[in-house]
């Protein structure tokens, strides 16, 4: 997934943001494309036929009324209603345009850093070898022969280089998890440090050894050994800076999704904002229930109804108020009128909620019974029985297909009531059923993934509705997290708002209690009759 930072304070000096600049333009185009007027009342919606993530049982209610393009497409208002059709068709548009120009600029950057890293690695590894070999090539006659201690140092150099190779492979050559907007500051610093170091060694070698053609070979070998030792220490520094420093939790971040208020808290160490955002996103995919736009339509329609009956007219005539003052007085008038009007929408909400709850429970009861009954038709056959009675044996997929029709209707109704029908396709349900049958799961275990919304990773990629992220932040994204810093991770449909709080400094003192000092008395209040 690629990420971009839209950060207005800095101009794009950093060479790394070449690719992101282009992406920034494109994302702004998409945002403009998307943020059209939503409270228009026209019911016509034009659906672009999109590549199929086919919904449950060919359920056409998701796609909206009209599958074919309208004839007078240019004349009618292309308006989109606030239902799930809207975000599905938008997502398809986005997906098409994204797939076409998918990550061209970012691959370029990734290959550039990769080649740079490989070149630097080769340089660093071949330097000690070069130090050892060059005297033999350039002045072999003058060179002192290598004694025992010297040859022992050869072994040491060889093994240290091997260890360094393995350590660098373990730390650096892992497949990248993400593409971040700005360069990773610590890595850049370490690269610069290593280069400086190696350059200074070469300088010394060139001046003091190559020029003077020093014949003390043991000294040269010791010099090479010291270089390898220092490289190992730099690698230790790299581990501490890149891996160990952020392990100790320092900040508690609160991540809240803007559409439905789902909130989670995580503990992070001292990280830069972009790395913290990456960690948060990785947690997002595992912890947050999948974003379901169909659940938001109810509150939007309620909000529209609040102000639907009110129209504000300015009878004083145009031009005598400033625009801000006019808007201010308009909104005050609307609020006053709305307060005076007897609003019974809370009543409707209450009864609607109760009714919906009842309906969901009823459908759930039917579903559970249907699934339990369906599962009783299937029995795992033992090996011995297979040889004895040659009945019609089925593999799990066929078994799933056999029992699926009896529960399909109940399941479809339930998913439609809980507005989850676009998350599960028929194929995925049958696959899940086959999986449950293979692993001897009970009907309740099979149903669990449909009864509650699971984390985003559980669903197939096309249903995530959250694949490319934009980091929006006041502070520079390479600066560290600080107390009270706020940034946003924006996706096409929603955004995650992150606030940071520092974990307080804890002052602990000790108190010693002697185990023998635990003594008790009996306190009675007896009553005796005389």
């Amino acid at each position: 997934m690629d990420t971009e930072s839209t950060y207005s304070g800095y101009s794009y000096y950093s060479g790394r943001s070449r690719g992101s600049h282009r992406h920034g333009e494109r994302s702004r185009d998409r945002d403009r494309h998307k943020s059209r007027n939503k409270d228009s009342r026209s019911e016509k919606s034009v659906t672009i036929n999109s590549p199929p993530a086919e919904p449950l049982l060919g359920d056409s209610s998701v796609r909206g009324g009209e599958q074919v393009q309208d004839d007078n497409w240019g004349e009618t208002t292309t308006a989109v209603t606030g239902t799930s059709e809207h975000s599905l068709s938008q997502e398809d548009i986005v997906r098409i345009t994204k797939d076409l120009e998918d990550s061209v600029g970012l691959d370029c950057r990734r290959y550039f850093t990769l080649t740079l890293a490989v070149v630097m690695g080769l340089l660093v590894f071949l330097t000690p070898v070069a130090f050892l070999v060059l005297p033999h090539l350039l002045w072999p006659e003058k060179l002192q022969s290598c004694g025992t201690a010297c040859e022992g140092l050869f072994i040491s150099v060889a093994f240290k280089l091997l260890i360094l190779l393995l350590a660098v492979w373990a730390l650096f050559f892992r497949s990248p998890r993400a593409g971040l907007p700005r360069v990773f500051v610590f890595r850049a610093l370490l690269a610069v440090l290593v280069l400086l170091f190696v350059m200074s060694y070469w300088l010394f070698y060139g001046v003091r050894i190559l020029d003077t053609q020093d014949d003390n070979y043991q000294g040269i070998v010791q010099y090479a050994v010291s270089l390898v030792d220092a490289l190992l220490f730099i690698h230790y520094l790299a581990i501490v800076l890149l891996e160990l420093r952020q392990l100790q939790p320092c900040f508690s971040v609160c991540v809240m999704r803007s559409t439905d208020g789902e909130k989670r808290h995580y503990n992070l160490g001292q990280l830069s904002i972009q790395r913290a955002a990456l960690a948060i996103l990785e947690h997002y995919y595992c912890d947050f229930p999948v974003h379901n736009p169909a659940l938001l339509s109810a509150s939007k329609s309620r909000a529209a109804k609040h102000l639907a009956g009110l129209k504000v007219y300015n009878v004083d005539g145009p031009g005598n108020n400033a625009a801000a003052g006019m808007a201010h007085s308009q909104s005050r008038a609307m609020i006053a009128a709305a307060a005076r009007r007897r609003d019974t929408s809370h009543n409707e909400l209450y009864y609607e909620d109760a009714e919906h709850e009842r309906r969901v429970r009823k459908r759930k009861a039917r579903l559970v019974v249907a699934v339990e009954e369906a599962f009783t038709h299937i029995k795992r056959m033992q090996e011995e029985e297979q040889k004895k009675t040659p009945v019609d044996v089925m593999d799990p997929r066929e078994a799933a297909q056999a029992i699926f029709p009896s529960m399909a209707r109940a399941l479809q109704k339930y998913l439609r009531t809980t507005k989850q029908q676009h998350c599960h396709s028929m194929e995925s349900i049958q696959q899940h059923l086959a999986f449950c049958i293979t692993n001897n799961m009970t009907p309740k275990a099979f149903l669990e993934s449909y009864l509650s919304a699971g984390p985003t990773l559980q669903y197939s990629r096309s249903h995530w509705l959250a694949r490319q992220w934009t980091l929006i932040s006041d502070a520079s994204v390479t600066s560290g997290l600080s107390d009270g810093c706020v940034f946003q991770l924006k996706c096409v449909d929603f955004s995650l708002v992150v606030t940071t709080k520092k974990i307080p400094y804890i002052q602990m003192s000790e108190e010693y209690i002697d185990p023998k000092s635990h003594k008790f008395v009996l306190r009675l209040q007896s009553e005796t009759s005389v």
Partner: protein
Amino acid sequence: MSNFIPGQPLVAVVQRIEIKKLRQGDNLILGFSIGGGIDQDPGQNPFSDDKADKGIYVTRITPGGPAETADLRMGDKIMQVNGYDMTMMTHDQARKRLTKKNEDVVRLLVTRKSLEEAVKNSMGGHQRQ
């Protein structure tokens, strides 16, 4: 009851109550229950004003018993029994004092809050025993 200061003489308005023991089978009973004592927890005494007071209190009166007819009331603090001081007694010692088999009559000095107020009202603040 006056505030109890340990080590200082206690001043209180008391009433003399004479109870004749009633014979019930093999026992001589007085018809009330006592609570308190220096070995008990004074904080649980519902009748005392000062929750550090470890004196002996009347906690229950049997209806129709000899104590009720002698006008002993619930919540009274027993100061003396037959001349013996009861303010610094353990619970068991108090019980023994009240249930001596060779005594038919016990003469109690009890104090209660209403006594002090009555004296105050009638004497205008001047107390006497």
